[in-house]
């Protein structure tokens, strides 16, 4: 998976051409969320109906055609697709996402239960991405065109070009199987999960729930289980951050004010970590918006690889069960998350970056 970083930055800047005040810009960006989500939901609705129905998927090899058709008819899957579509839109507009077909769960419950797990993974992932990507990007910029820089650039390409299911399996093999240091699946051990289940109203964020338990062992257990999934997904993002920080740091280090600081005897360390570092981080805000989509896409594979039971994990299950209702609900939520995060990033970029005019 690759990302055209250079193309990502001007995209924000180009939006400044519309003119008008900040309020109008925000309103315009907010309105764009609606068609984005609408188009995605429509596409998923149509695509899901081209891969069969959940009844055939479940009992296609147990019932004669007449009985199968009877069940499909009773469920309404043989009605014209437009009728089903408008019925679905009507439900969505009234906040009713329905009940999953394959396991009889309210979709909203699925979204909240598994959404928490995915958000927790995203949180750990971003920590890895920041902790690894930013310092290494600075290091690469500092050693520009020398050995460490070349090594780090190769490392960056390697991390964001490696498919997460491959890097996930590799990490599992090394740290889980060969070395036996880290758990290879799940969000916590069975003992911890049983304790969390007994909490009044568990939040779904295992780290928060473990803290509520007041047990260091439980907190450590949750964190240890997060290491490999967070590394898998985080390193991919870290590679992108590394290259972006390096590129911007090199640009910033060549600025006159940096030269001026250098001539006044400011140490290289200070120049890199204080003066050049902050301006170089501004483009990262823009890229984070794009990374959310990439991260959620990667979460499907990462969660499946590590049995991290979040939205991505469930999406894979519901897809195999041809569960229209569940897939539509999850994809709609993911679309909203991506659109909203891009919206927030656009607004932040407009506020922070003076080059963006609105």
């Amino acid at each position: 998976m690759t990302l055209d970083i250079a193309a990502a930055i001007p995209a924000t800047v180009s939006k400044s051409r519309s003119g008008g005040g900040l309020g109008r810009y925000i309103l315009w960006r907010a309105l764009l969320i609606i068609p984005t989500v609408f188009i995605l939901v429509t596409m998923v609705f149509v695509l899901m109906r081209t891969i069969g129905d959940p009844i055939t998927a479940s009992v296609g090899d147990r019932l004669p055609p007449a009985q199968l058709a009877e069940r499909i008819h009773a469920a309404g899957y043989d009605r014209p697709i437009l009728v089903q579509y408008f019925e679905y839109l009507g439900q969505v507009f009234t906040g009713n996402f329905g009940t999953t077909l394959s396991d009889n769960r309210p979709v909203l419950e699925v979204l909240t239960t598994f959404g928490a797990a995915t958000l927790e993974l995203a949180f750990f992932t971003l920590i890895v991405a920041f902790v690894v990507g930013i310092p290494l990007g600075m290091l690469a910029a500092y050693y520009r065109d020398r050995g460490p820089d070349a090594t780090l650039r190769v490392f960056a390409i390697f991390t964001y070009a490696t498919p997460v299911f491959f890097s996930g399996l590799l990490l599992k093999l090394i740290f889980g199987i060969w070395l036996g240091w880290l758990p290879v699946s799940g969000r916590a051990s069975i003992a911890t999960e049983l304790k969390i289940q007994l909490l009044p109203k568990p939040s779904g964020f295992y780290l928060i729930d473990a803290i509520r338990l007041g047990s260091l062992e439980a907190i450590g257990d949750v964190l240890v289980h997060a290491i490999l999934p967070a590394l898998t997904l985080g390193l991919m993002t870290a590679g992108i951050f590394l290259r972006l920080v390096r590129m911007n740091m090199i640009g910033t280090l060549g600025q006159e004010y940096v030269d001026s600081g250098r001539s006044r005897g400011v140490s290289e360390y200070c120049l890199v970590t204080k003066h050049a570092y902050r301006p170089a981080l501004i483009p990262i805000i823009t890229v984070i918006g794009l990374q959310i989509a990439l991260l959620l896409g990667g979460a499907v594979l990462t969660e499946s690889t590590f049995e991290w039971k979040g939205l991505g994990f469930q999406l894979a299950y519901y897809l195999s069960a041809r569960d229209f209702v569940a897939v539509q609900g999850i994809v709609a939520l993911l679309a909203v998350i991506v659109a909203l995060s891009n919206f927030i990033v656009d607004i932040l970029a407009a506020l922070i970056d003076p080059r963006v005019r609105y």
Partner: protein
Amino acid sequence: MKLSRTGYGVLALATSSALLLAGCASGGGDGGGSTGGAITVGTTEVVTSLDPAGAYDNGSFGVMTNIYPFLLNNPVGSSDVEPDIAESAEFTEPTKYTVKLKEGLTFANGNELTSSDVKFTFDRQIAIADENGPSSLLANLDSVEAVDDTTVVFTLKEGNDQTFPQVLSSPVGPIVDEEVFPADALASDADIVAGKPFAGQYSLESFDKGNLAAYKAFDGYQGLWGAAKTPEVNVKYFADESNLSQAIETKAVDVAFRSLSATDIEKFEGMDGLNVVKGPGGEIRYIVFNFNVQPYGASTAEADPAKALAVRQAAADLIDRDKISEQVFKGTYTPLYSYVPDGLTGANESLKGLYGNGDGGPDSERAAKRLADAGVQTPVVLNLQYAGERYGAASSEEYAQIKAQLEADGLFTVNLQSTEWGQFTKDRVADMYPAHQLGWFPDYSDADNYLTPFFLEGGFLVNHYNNEEVNSLIRQQLVTPDADERAALIGQIQDLVAQDLSTLPMLQGAQVAVAVDGVDGVTLDPSFKFRFGTLTK
């Protein structure tokens, strides 16, 4: 260099923190961890619903078997049924099946379990008729009457239905509490767990769907299986069999049941500290011949029933089930030589003597002679379809073997193709496939479940096979109360179908569980039910 030192310092700090966390946490190298005296079972099964009206799958039934009471059930080691929470159960008239409940039955929530709950249970199944539910198993049920607190009378549409007692032990049979379950809608899993409407060997204490279930022995259970031997059982659900395999290998779970890959099972058989337990399984894999579009089939240009039969029989002569069982499935599926799998009352090996070398092995000379005698030109071109998405990744290897075996002596040319499951189900009933793969898992452990759905008036296969003699015998065995007489009829049906070869039985799935040292009582029998209550640690 100051910056480098800081960088290395950060790296060192991060590494040591990770190692410290690994040391702090209880479980390393696994997804589970010890849970004291409780037994932890790992599985890849999927639970659709805890409501018996909303689920008709192995994963859900695996839970229900252990938490709900049944009127009749399978004693350990048997495929036949006996009264469970019932005192007695019998046909009092050809269309009346009367069940007398034991006195003083209660649910785990303290509610009384009476005949009213039983009537409510079956009326509710029919009223809801959920698309994911098992209500179709009650097709022969006309009405249910609660005569008094402990007596229930089932009125059947067709008299003397010998499968009805089995139906009561099947996924449609769990008795539910009328004070917890709605009469005309499914109950949510959360409401069920909170309502504790359990009266089986165990009560479900907590349930995190797709992740973890915690069971506690129910001391009010008065049924056939007796008191549970282990007070607490946890079930950890895995999505991936490789993760389940790692969990049992690292002893994060005490027992792994359904499903482990054949390769992993073979590996565990030679591993210290792990014990592989095998038992007969109800799952079968088979090839369906479409009598219309197979070579020389009824709707082909060269239609000839005798030649078509010779083609099917020659295919049966050439198949080496042992080889597929050993090489592809490492013994986790065993050869199946008839329609009713081994372990069930009435099962025989009807194909063994009729085809191949007479002892289950292949015989190409016999196949060649059969084709020559019928005047069939060789090689016979056979289009064979399989659905790996539905029947597992091993299907491709299995069907590659079948192709190789059929083609080995030049008698067949097999065009092998895999199709996506949604398309496959449409095509198979639209006469698109001359021969295709299918599999079956029983609704209940009775031979009839392998005959009526398949062969009575063509059954669900829709392969244009219809033998009046077979139809008549199937109807006869359904209403024959004498067990020996019924078993003989079931044998005759298998013999007849074996001559016609509507389908070619291939393999029977073995049940396999892996337990760590110190865990005993894993019982895998022809009931195909996994009982937590027999486990000890």
